[in-house]
């Protein structure tokens, strides 16, 4: 048994034993669970992929004369101004003004909020255009100027939903090509796409939420961030397989971090033909090895994690809950899966190679004493399920 304080003391003295969630599998097999749990302090997990529920809060500072922005656009992408005078919220899936979207389907969706966030982190110069109704203390009615991230007082990324614990494998049983947030799905089940880092994924290595909770320190695109809440659509209850992997709904994390500390390699604009724009972002989560049980669950392997195969032509859009079968991440990563006796080629939206790089970068930071762990001040609920939106008449 180890405490957070003991682990942090070892990290601070540069003596912590840290391994990635991939390295730990063989290490524990060779060393034995008890002995490895006594020796290893931290296991690093990671994921990289499109996280649609992403955005950022920006503070521009005050112009002379001052303006209370009531509408604002960054690079022609609308930002939400229902905050204080020069604070805005910019969302990753907001499309650039005048983009034809799916007017002539499938649309290309070349630029949007996710691309603005990527350009901001890359240090590019961006245009701000804002309007105001004008007030006595904020008289300016219109402003157009240019800025970089260095000119901003704050640029804080918020991911209301990141690190989905498990996800669908998307397939298309119809007779026409589908263009979805899970990528291009050819007709007649000619391909399938998945989106998870599998054995490296944070919440698959802490499936019962024993260490990752509200307040946990995380690595967000190179910055030191934290879990600020349970993620949206977090559904910790429901069925789990023998390795505690959720079979249905699953957990999510809400993350936040300082964009000024982020690396452009891990903050990327996403364009998905026919669907829209988003943000590709990388997150790493350290798991403190408090006891052998925690370590045991970090030894999860791709072959033990199964995901539901879902038809995105009918079952997904109509929310029928029906699945065509289950498949393991080992099978998915082989590039081919079996669907009703047919071999189907598989692609991914999540990058395992980037996740691996993040897990290694985070491990290196912890080993060097630069990244300390924090004990969560609230745990994630393990007994909640996702509610649907009911369409109903007014009750009163």
């Amino acid at each position: 048994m180890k405490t957070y304080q003991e682990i942090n003391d070892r990290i601070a003295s540069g003596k912590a034993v840290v391994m990635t969630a991939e390295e730990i599998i063989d290490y524990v097999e060779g060393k034995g669970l008890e002995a490895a749990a006594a020796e290893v302090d931290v296991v690093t997990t990671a994921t990289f992929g499109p996280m649609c529920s992403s955005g950022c809060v920006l503070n521009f500072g005050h112009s002379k004369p001052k303006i209370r922005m009531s509408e604002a656009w960054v690079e022609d992408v609308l930002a939400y101004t229902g905050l204080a005078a020069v604070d805005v919220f910019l969302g990753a899936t907001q499309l650039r003004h005048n983009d034809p979207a799916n007017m002539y389907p499938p649309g290309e969706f070349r630029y949007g909020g996710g691309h603005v966030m990527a350009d901001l982190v890359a240090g590019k110069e961006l245009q701000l255009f804002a309007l105001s109704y004008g007030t006595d203390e904020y008289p300016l009615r219109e402003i157009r100027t240019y800025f970089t991230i260095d000119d901003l007082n704050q640029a804080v990324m918020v991911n209301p939903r990141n690190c989905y614990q498990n996800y669908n494998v998307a397939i298309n049983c119809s007779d026409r090509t589908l263009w979805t947030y899970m990528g291009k799905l050819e007709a007649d089940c000619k391909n399938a796409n998945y989106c998870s880092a599998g054995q490296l994924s944070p919440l698959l290595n802490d499936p019962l939420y024993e260490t990752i909770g509200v307040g946990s320190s995380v690595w967000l695109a190179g910055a030191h961030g934290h879990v600020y809440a349970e993620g949206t659509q977090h559904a910790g209850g429901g069925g789990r397989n023998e390795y505690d992997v959720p079979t249905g709904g699953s957990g999510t994390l809400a993350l936040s971090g300082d964009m000024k500390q982020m690396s452009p390699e891990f903050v990327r604009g996403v364009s998905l033909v026919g669907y829209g724009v988003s943000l590709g972002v990388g997150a790493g989560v350290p798991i403190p090895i408090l006891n052998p049980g925690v370590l045991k669950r970090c030894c999860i392997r791709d072959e033990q994690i199964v995901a539901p195969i879902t038809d995105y032509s009918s079952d997904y859009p109509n929310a029928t809950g029906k699945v065509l079968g289950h498949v393991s991440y080992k099978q998915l990563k082989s590039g081919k899966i079996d669907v009703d006796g047919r071999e189907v080629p598989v692609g991914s939206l999540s990058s395992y190679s980037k996740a691996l790089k993040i897990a290694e970068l985070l491990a290196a930071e912890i080993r060097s004493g630069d990244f300390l762990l924090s004990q969560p001040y609230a745990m994630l609920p393990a007994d909640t399920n996702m509610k649907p939106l009911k369409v109903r008449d007014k009750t009163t």
Partner: protein
Amino acid sequence: MTETVTKKLMLFFPKCECEKPIIYHLVKDYDLVVNVFRAKVTPEEEGYLVLDVTGAEENIDRAVEFVGTFNVTINAAGKGVTWDPDACTGCGHCVVHCPTGALHISDRATMEVAFDEEKCIECLACIRVCPYDVCASAF
């Protein structure tokens, strides 16, 4: 019998050369088998042509020399489609949509994506499906 080889070429035609039947001469005068992957050569406009030529190496060399007598730029590397390894995130979404395996997973342990230019037939499928705008076309 002379050994035959295949070379991929990308030709750029400035406006003044767009109406000349250059490919006809490659077949007729130099005994080459041509396989055009992609072409955009319109009269009165500049244009590009990406093709494989198969034949005796000596004939290919002479044919390249012949093409060079026109105001046509020859890019023997034949890169009409480029892939930026630094921009690629390695998600692998493109891989199943690439019909020739030019874009492929080079190592299933690390799931790194790699691009084999020799296999690329410039169908442009990757340009459409890449979420990160990693693949680009010269024309």
